[in-house]
């Protein structure tokens, strides 16, 4: 299937239901200028803005009234419990789900899940999902004309260890085009879904790969206005995670917002 990147009218695929048609003609330069203006006026923010107009889909989907400060009560100081009943150990290896080996660069991603006080988040569920080595998701709404891989679903889950550690074996995902604006490409990423000890710590985020040339162009990554905070989403290449003649390795620690629970002595033996 041929496709002229310079003429949107020539595009031979359509996923128009996942985008804002009015916005797809904006140039990368327009998006860059909008992002720059927001970044210039911001400082020291640690989380994404929910109102970030360069990400066009956020326009009508972010709250406009102020967030209501609340103290967590009872149920909110606990999280659901997950364990070996829920997740089989093989589910953390995304390369063994098909009849054969998936295509692409085999990688291991390893790290720890901690709370703001450095306590490991133990026995908790971690879920990931991602595009394949060609930049294609197994999803009926992904019509990007890159090949699906019959041996790769791009979904995995695991339960953290006593030290908060997790590890996935997978394939390095590729960047893929989307229609936020003209010639828009997402940097390669793996989606992570995380639970803490308190349900208020529940989070979903994306892990990126070091040195991606698409970082500066991507309004989802750039919705975090501070470089130091953005860096927290980027894994480190780690040669100790790479293994001989088998996989390259990345390391990524995740910090959840602080627990509001009153911790007992002994709950904190974090080593």
């Amino acid at each position: 299937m041929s496709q002229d990147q310079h003429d949107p009218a020539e595009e031979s695929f359509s996923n128009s239901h996942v985008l804002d048609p009015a916005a797809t003609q904006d140039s990368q330069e327009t998006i860059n200028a909008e992002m720059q203006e927001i970044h210039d006026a911001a400082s020291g923010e640690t989380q994404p803005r929910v109102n970030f107009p360069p990400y066009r889909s956020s326009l009508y989907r972010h709250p406009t009234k102020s967030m209501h400060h609340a103290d967590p009560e009872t149920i909110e100081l606990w999280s659901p419990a997950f364990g070996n009943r829920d997740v089989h150990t093989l589910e953390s290896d995304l390369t063994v789900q098909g009849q054969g080996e998936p295509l692409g660069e085999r990688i291991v991603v390893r790290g720890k899940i901690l709370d703001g006080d450095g306590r490991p988040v133990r026995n908790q569920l971690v879920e990931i999902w991602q595009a394949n080595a060609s930049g294609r998701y197994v999803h009926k709404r992904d019509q990007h004309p890159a090949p699906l891989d019959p041996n790769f679903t791009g979904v995995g889950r695991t339960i953290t260890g006593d030290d908060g550690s997790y590890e996935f074996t997978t394939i390095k995902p590729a960047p893929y085009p989307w229609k936020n604006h003209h010639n828009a490409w997402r940097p390669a990423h793996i989606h992570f879904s995380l639970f803490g000890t308190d349900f208020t710590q529940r989070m979903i985020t994306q892990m990126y790969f070091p040195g991606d040339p698409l970082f500066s162009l991507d309004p989802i990554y750039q919705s975090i206005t501070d470089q130091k905070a953005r860096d927290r989403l980027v894994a480190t290449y780690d040669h100790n995670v790479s293994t001989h003649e088998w996989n390259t390795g990345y390391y990524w620690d995740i910090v959840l917002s602080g627990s509001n629970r009153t911790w007992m002595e002994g709950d904190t033996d974090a080593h």
Partner: protein
Amino acid sequence: MRIDQNQLDAARSGDERLVPTPGQTIGPFFGYADGFEQVHLPFRDGNHLVNPARPDAVRLTGTVYDGNGDPIPDAMLEIWQADAEGQIPQETGSLVRDGWTFTGWGRATVDNVGTYTFSTVNPGPTEEGKAPFIHLVVFARGLLNKLHTRIYLPEDTAALEKDALLSSLDADRRSTLIAERRADGSLLFDVHLQGEKETVFLQFPGIEYPDHA
């Protein structure tokens, strides 16, 4: 990034807290459930905390709307709640439900017209005299970070009057957090991400929403 030993020591000794990792949008491809074909985050019976055929099963349903008042087809919702006696469940098995164990947690994706449905039980009050509620967290394409809110049961009006969160809101805003009980016993709770009827979303200590300081 990697948290190094110095940062960890400082955090554990209480000198300096670790800064939380930023959230990001769930995006459009978090999965779907299509009959028995379910991939990515949704899983079989994820929205059935109890079997819908159980006599005490309660249907919790509603629609997720954007700022134009249009239903959105690509949101994912999770609820977390006490059981009917007000006890906090700590049983595993949410992802592989056995049909008998109440785990208190469920996950639902909205359908093509923005509607979600859970099958659950009415939570009991976790403490004497407290207003029972179901905690709700919302993720969606176009939504750059998670949003927390509460679904209060409408019945115990005395407890609702005394509730710390509800009494800090004016009547219009307060009403966005209280579910409507319908004649068939089901609970109706719509989520408005933006606009006139915007749902009250909660910011708990430790998490920042920078443009909503």
